[in-house]
């Protein structure tokens, strides 16, 4: 039976992962992600799990790697500077093909930044904050309900591809309290057999070892090539996006997360006035949904990308569009209200409709 709860979206992330079978949450306090660990510290023990508060984000992500070695899916949650510290082990986990679920309650940067919510970590999330050719699967829910709905899928992606999966949610959305419906609890992590690779001792398998450093040049080539092929497959199969009113649109608005959510109101209000505006909301940021842009209709005169940063995803939109249509950008970050308002988005879309 479905259950509807009124929760802060950080708590929704915590509740979702508990309901979906995650039993270990490693974390270090940081605003605005801390509510996740407060919630799991209280709720996980009731389900035979635990929240493990470590001494730093470095320790968090490396403990998560150790946990994953045993073939178990753990989780972590953090924000901006914490995410930066975790990059070391995230690259390590990608190289070692170890799964995990992570949340970045994105805040404004750079440096230690500010606790204000933003979308400043798009580059870091999608390009890899660590060294080497690795990829992290990035999901960008736009509300609490979507966090809950995407959790089973995120777990499936993490376990199928044995890769870290990162939820990026801006800090504003994370701190919103919303009504969310949850499906019946189900341990999705148990749907995957990890016995072929987990490090569980040599009782039932010959020695296994996870080497990401001291391999030979040939082994290194093979490892990187295997990963490249995996990323090609993910890129091909796992793109997700939402779109509406694209078919005859003159202006397409592209935004993820909270601005993506606002696009619905923008498009609805514009259409009510007879203005042909449509939207594309990427749900996977990596792989970026290039396919959404493959067949944009000839009616589209321009594209407007809206972000809570100085323009990061806009690069991916430009790559996907490949010069076929002009791509414009509207963004805001820092300050007391780091988001673009609906009025600003509407004004910019109208300017583009009028060919300004």
């Amino acid at each position, binding site marked *: 039976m479905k259950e509807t709860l009124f929760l802060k979206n950080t708590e929704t992330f915590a509740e979702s992962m508990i309901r979906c079978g995650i039993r270990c949450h490693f974390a270090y306090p940081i605003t605005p992600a801390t509510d996740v660990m407060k919630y799991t510290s209280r709720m996980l023990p009731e389900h035979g799990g635990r929240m*493990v508060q470590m001494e730093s984000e470095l*320790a968090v992500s*490396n403990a998560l*790697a*150790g946990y994953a070695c045993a073939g178990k899916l753990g989780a972590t949650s953090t924000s901006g500077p914490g995410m930066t510290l975790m990059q*070391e082990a995230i690259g*390590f986990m990608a190289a070692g093909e170890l799964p995990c679920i992570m949340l970045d309650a994105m805040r404004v940067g750079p440096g230690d930044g500010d606790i204000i919510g933003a979308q400043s970590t798009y580059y870091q999330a999608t390009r890899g904050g660590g060294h080497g050719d690795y990829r992290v699967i990035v999901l960008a829910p736009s509300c609490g309900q979507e966090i809950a709905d995407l959790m089973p899928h995120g777990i499936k992606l993490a376990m199928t591809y044995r890769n870290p999966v990162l939820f990026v949610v801006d800090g504003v959305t994370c701190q919103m309290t919303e009504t969310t419906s949850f499906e019946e609890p189900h341990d999705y992590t148990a749907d995957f057999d990890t016995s072929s690779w987990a490090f569980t*001792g*040599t009782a039932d398998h010959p020695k296994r070892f996870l080497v990401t450093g001291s391999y030979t040049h040939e082994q290194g080539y093979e490892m990187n090539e295997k990963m490249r092929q995996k990323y090609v497959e993910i890129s091909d199969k796992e793109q997700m996006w939402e779109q509406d009113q694209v078919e005859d649109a003159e202006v397409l608005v592209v935004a993820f997360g909270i601005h993506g959510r606002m696009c619905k109101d923008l498009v609805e209000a514009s259409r009510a006035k007879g203005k042909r505006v449509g939207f594309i909301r990427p749900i996977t940021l990596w792989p970026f949904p290039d396919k959404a842009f493959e067949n944009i209709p000839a009616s589209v005169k321009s594209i407007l990308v809206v972000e809570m940063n100085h323009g990061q995803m806009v690069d991916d939109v430009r790559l996907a569009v490949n010069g076929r249509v002009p791509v414009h950008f509207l963004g805001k970050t820092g300050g007391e209200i780091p988001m673009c308002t609906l009025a600003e988005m509407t004004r910019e879309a109208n300017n583009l409709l009028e060919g300004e």
Partner: protein
Amino acid sequence: MQTLADYYGKTLKFDKLTSYCPGCGHGIVTRLVAETIEAMGIREKTMAVVGIGCGGFSHHYLEVDAMEAIHGRSPASAIGYKIALPDHIVFTYQGDGDTSAIGLHEIMHAANRGMPITCIMVNNSVFGMTGGQMSPTSIPGQVTSTTATGRDVAVHGYPLLVPEMMRAMQGVSYLARESVVDVKSIKKAAKSIRNAFECQVRGLGFSFVEVISPCPTGLHLSVPDAYAFAAKETLSYFKPQVFKNELEKNDEV
């Protein structure tokens, strides 16, 4: 036909030459760890978490599951693994650079957390793999490739005494400094390593053994001179001793 494995057990692998330089103390310490695992009959449920540096190769010579953790972070990874599989045995094998420079933070918190994992720190007072630079454990006056006129404590600080720093921590169940500079010391080191693993098996808490060892290559000394240096110079600063042994409250092995 009898094989070496029949004779010595399965834990130590004999099928390839080690990458350790001739005369390196790592060879002895790796063997002591292997013999401990073999003697305790825990091979099939043991996980090695090795650090970066020459010691990172240790698992190549052990028939146990293993991961090469990121520089310094082995204790954090070992904790994650132990949480996932509490009935399994997990140990870290790290050099002095890995443990006391880049990984000091992880080792100290692991010790203080008191979770039953075992950490072996091989201290040869120099960065071996990267070519003989100063380590936090280089002794005063020690010439390295980054202290050409010798370690100057006014500039570089004093050698780091890791077990001494852990001594007051309640979560630590076994704490010792040993060496492999001569046969008598090797026998004592074997006992401490065994005790450290035993503490984990009995769930008593965190266990740690620092092993003073020679690095002929990093020290630019002949093998006998490297052993003499470790025995005289290094041990004069790093005094071997058992700091703490919770097994005494139970019965020692």
